[in-house]
């Protein structure tokens, strides 16, 4: 009995020690100031989402060092093409960070035909345009969020005006929702734990944390 207790305490303490000396957690290295334009057709359907991301100076300088093949400390067109191809390929897996929801249900977006990369004032710019897969009518509550589910990139919409609607019907109203991460965590703790047990590898927290533009329009038949 005596030995058993000691052993248990010992094994537990060693296990705790080892877990605590394990690898450090995630590091979001990258920030991007973003702008989103939602383009709406006259028939109240969404034509496309236009994204502009301006990356922070630190990340931009590593991109410059990495892709500057000819060593002139500038990114020319061919080098920028490499940058955009690389990002384009990687983002496919993450739906280009777009989360579009209609009345709480996901609406699929088509991948953008291409990505544009540019370098302005020491900062990397990424631009692209993505269309809804199915016609997406502004009816009820439609929300548009941009978020990196891996937390590697923090997409920031500094001002509410950086999420804009072009051609918004007069009877719709728009709000920008910025969830407070800590509050969102507290509110969703139960859901998150359930989600883990139901689907350990699956869903992400993007929907909870993403800054999103919410359009509320009268329901249409």
């Amino acid at each position, binding site marked *: 009995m005596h030995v058993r207790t000691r*052993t248990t305490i010992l094994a537990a303490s060693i296990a705790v020690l080892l877990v605590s000396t394990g690898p450090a957690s*995630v590091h979001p290295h990258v*920030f991007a100031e973003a702008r989103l334009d939602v383009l709406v057709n006259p028939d109240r359907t969404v034509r496309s989402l236009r994204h502009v991301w301006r990356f922070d100076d630190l990340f931009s300088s590593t991109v410059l060092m*990495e892709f500057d093949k000819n060593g002139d400390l500038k990114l020319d067109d061919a080098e920028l093409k490499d940058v955009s191809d690389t990002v384009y390929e990687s983002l496919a897996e993450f739906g280009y960070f777009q989360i579009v929801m209609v009345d709480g249900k996901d609406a699929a977006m088509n991948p953008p035909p291409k990505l544009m990369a540019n370098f302005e004032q020491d900062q990397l710019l990424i631009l692209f345009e993505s269309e809804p897969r199915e016609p997406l009518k502004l009816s009820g509550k439609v929300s548009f969020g941009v978020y990196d*589910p891996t937390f590697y990139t923090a997409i920031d919409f500094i001002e509410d005006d950086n999420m804009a609607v072009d051609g918004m019907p007069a009877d719709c109203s728009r709000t920008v929702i910025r969830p407070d991460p800590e509050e969102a*965590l507290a509110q969703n703790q139960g859901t*998150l734990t359930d989600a883990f047990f139901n689907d350990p590898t699956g869903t992400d927290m993007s929907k909870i944390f993403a800054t999103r533009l919410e359009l509320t329009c009268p329901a249409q038949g």
Partner: protein
Amino acid sequence: MNRTTGRLVFAALVAGCALTQFSSMAHAQSSLGIGTSEATIPSTGLFGGLMMWINIQQQAFYRALTGALKAMRQDGGQMWLLVGLSFAYGIFHAAGPGHGKAVISSYMLANEVALRRGIMLSFVSAFLQAATAIAMMTLLFLVLRGTSITMTNATWFLEVISYLLVMLFGAYLLWQKATPRIRGMIGANPAYSLSAAHAHDHHDHACVHHSHEPAGEDSHAGHDHSDHAHDHHHHHHHGPGTVCSTCGHSHAPDPAMISGDHFNWKTAWSAVAAVGLRPCSGALIVLTFAFLNGLWVGGVLSVLAMAVGTAITVSALAIMAVTAKNWAVSFAGDGRAGNRIHAAIEIGGAGLVFLLGLLLLTASLSA
């Protein structure tokens, strides 16, 4: 019961480490395809909330660091803000994906190393890491720019070498720790009890270079002296000129041996090299920005500050590891259980280093 004790502890060691390693190795490539996300978190899960909280804090911290770098570009007087933040970064971030702290802690678990040496090892390896980052960036920026060697290539190359060294180092430790015991267990020497093996093990470490029998002392006097001169770096528990009185004719555990230094510079240096060869990505990012903007002094100082911070954290963890080990051994008593636990911790620590190297190497070769 006692026989299972060691196995239980060992299983706990391996399982704990394997779990933490595998869970973080899931996504090495970042979502943007540029740069590596050092580790990723479970987006949902029992610890999702805590991890998310840590994530938010780190995000805020990166923002501050980015801000400080930009401020320094505008005004050189802002350099100290950057240096301070880098120091804090080192403390919290502690050697990238954590192989540094894991290797040093495991090394200290596997060896009888005095705490102050553990602290010194942490500092030396952190500064080597900083030096690697500075040397690599200088080379890339001034010499290799425009060649096909990019930062990603170079980092990857150093990383693979570093992990390979970690693995080899672990294999060596494991071999050194496990063979005497296995030999004793399979009955090569029936009188070779575990406690004697324990003492003998350390005896081999400490005195291998001058294990002279008293009878042979006269005929080998010259040899002894040169040997000793060569040797007293290792042996701080007896002063220069004295002869190790217990060497060669005592198998009883000498208290000085157990509590003191059995410090082997060769193995220690290989631990330091294995850790220090892989530059920390935070340091590389700061240096890239600093060099591109001509902020040479600020960049280098900030990386050195990071190294100090990292060394402090790694030291603290190493101290925790050794304290826990000592506590566990004394808790289990002096008898056979104590020896077994001691053995299990040592072999477990060595196995851990090996496993860590293997996992990291596979992950970075397959990336």
